[in-house]
């Protein structure tokens, strides 16, 4: 288990009901963590539609999570 910080924006922030939180997780990768949070909070966006960032940099879904990381899941952007 490691302690990390998660920040939420836009629809994820609304569905979670808060902007950030500290959590303890056994998830190894960003993708694993998203699935854990999705099932816990009922996020509507499937993992394939969300990008991940760790410590303010985009990362692959397979990126490893480390103790103390700040992780953000990025919903699809406005586009047009």
């Amino acid at each position, binding site marked *: 288990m490691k302690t990390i910080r998660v920040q939420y924006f836009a629809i994820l922030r609304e569905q979670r009901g808060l902007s950030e939180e500290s959590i303890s997780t056994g998830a190894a990768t960003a993708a694993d963590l998203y699935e854990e949070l999705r099932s816990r909070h009922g996020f509507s966006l499937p993992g394939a539609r969300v990008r991940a960032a760790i410590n303010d940099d985009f990362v692959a879904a397979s990126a490893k999570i480390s103790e103390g990381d700040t992780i953000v899941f990025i919903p699809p952007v*406005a586009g047009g």
Partner: protein
Amino acid sequence: MFTISSEPIDGAALLRELGDRRAGACVTFEGWVRSTSSGRPVLALDYEAYAPLAEKEGLRILAEARARYPFIAARAVHRTGALKLGDLAVWVGVAAEHRAGAFDACRYIIDEAKARLPIWKREHYEEGPAEWINAATPKN
């Protein structure tokens, strides 16, 4: 420089920053809040940004534009917060020796910014609940 601003954007002041005696052309893009979206009447909207990453990605876009097109200076700002119809949501300006570089770089920057920056838009409509654009909702 690419910045995210919760304050209104002053396009005229940004344009003055680009002044340079070597520049013969300056192209600007302004994105305005318009009154319809996909045919639905819009009343207002909110922009929310993941600012640190948006500014980093914005700088990457400016660097890519510089590698592709000849220009002297570029500046971009994206607004966040509650905006009303007609408000300036995003401003991009590019000064170049010749106009081709200014047009090409300005268009590249706004196209990439719209596609890549972690900035989200929630529209408020005349009818029905507000929606985050492009994000799946529980209903669809």
